[in-house]
């Protein structure tokens, strides 16, 4: 489980998770270095299977050991809010995080990577689609082409299934975040919480098992208008997927 803006309450969250499901121990994955990151990871995996690879203010990368010599890179991101950043700033932040992830892929010699978190950008934002940033496409078959050449350089794709979670005809609510403002351009619903999958592991990813969660047990995370209940829970809705 990956949380953004956990407000240094990891011990409290860990206790609550273990109280809710005592049969399987959940642990906070401690960072290697004192971190200023707003991201926190909790895991039920046995000790040693999930290890930190790199930590940055907006991006944490962990390696999940699968079988011998085989691993999955899990990058968690929390980019800054567009309410306090320009679109260009967000694009540069996206490039910085994407480069950090690409560096780790290069150093570890594979691209079995998924990126998940609060990008604070919609799937159609330049930071999500630009080749120098996350380069995440909506088409699984296109992503399976693995890369494309742009201005003489090869850029590898991510697949972004969150395109299918935009609007009323998507599974679940119209987005993961709602924001209304009195300006001419207002999208109201956003899909800022996303998961991106590299083609190398795409065969293990079933889009039908990706959900935007609006209800936990019998408790709705939405208010009476069908929007995230930020007063009681969070202004974002969580996403869940399997790989």
């Amino acid at each position, binding site marked *: 489980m990956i949380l953004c803006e956990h407000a240094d309450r990891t011990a409290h969250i860990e206790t609550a998770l273990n109280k809710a499901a005592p049969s399987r121990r959940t642990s906070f994955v401690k960072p*290697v270095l004192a971190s200023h990151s707003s991201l926190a990871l909790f895991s039920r995996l046995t000790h040693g299977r999930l290890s930190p*690879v790199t930590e940055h203010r907006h991006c944490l990368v962990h390696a999940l050991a699968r079988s011998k010599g085989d691993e999955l890179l899990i990058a968690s991101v929390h980019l800054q809010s567009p309410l306090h950043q320009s679109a260009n700033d967000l694009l540069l932040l996206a*490039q910085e995080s994407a480069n950090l992830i690409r560096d780790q892929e290069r*150093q570890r010699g594979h691209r079995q990577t998924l990126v998940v978190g609060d990008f604070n950008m919609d799937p159609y934002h330049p930071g999500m689609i630009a080749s120098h940033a996350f380069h995440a496409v909506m088409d699984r078959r296109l992503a399976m082409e693995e890369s494309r050449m742009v201005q003489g350089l090869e850029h590898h794709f991510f697949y972004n299934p969150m395109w299918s979670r935009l609007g009323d005809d998507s599974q679940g609510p119209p987005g993961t975040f709602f924001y209304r403002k009195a300006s001419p351009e207002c999208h109201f619903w956003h899909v800022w919480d996303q998961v991106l999958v590299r083609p190398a592991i795409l065969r293990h990813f079933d889009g039908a098992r990706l959900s935007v969660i609006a209800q936990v047990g019998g408790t709705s995370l939405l208010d009476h208008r069908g929007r995230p209940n930020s007063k009681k829970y969070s202004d974002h809705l969580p996403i869940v997927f399997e790989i």
Partner: protein
Amino acid sequence: MSAATKNLWGSIPVVAKTKTPLTILREQGRILEEETGGILVGIVTTRTSAQGEMVHNFYIQAPLLGDYSHLLLSVLHGATMFPMEVHFEGRKAPAKNMETFERLLGGILKKPSTREVINSLLVQSGAL
């Protein structure tokens, strides 16, 4: 009748082999490796940004911690190397020549926060 070939280039100066920011970063990486007996190494990655700049990322890597890497600083420059920008801890500083770059780099490598990172990685690697 063939016309004589003219050299329109003029005299192309032979450039003396000089150090670049990349070679200096790599050297510092090797020094870190030597000083820590291989427990920590300095890794430099290079790429071109969307804006056409060269970006060199300098990582401190801990092989005994599953190759855990800490991004210490980034250096951004164009085809002419200078002026360049050095990014460190969310701030950026300009360097207009090699002397300024070396001074900036030395300042970052000696910073208490950098020493803290090195100490922490050495301790967790079982070296201290």
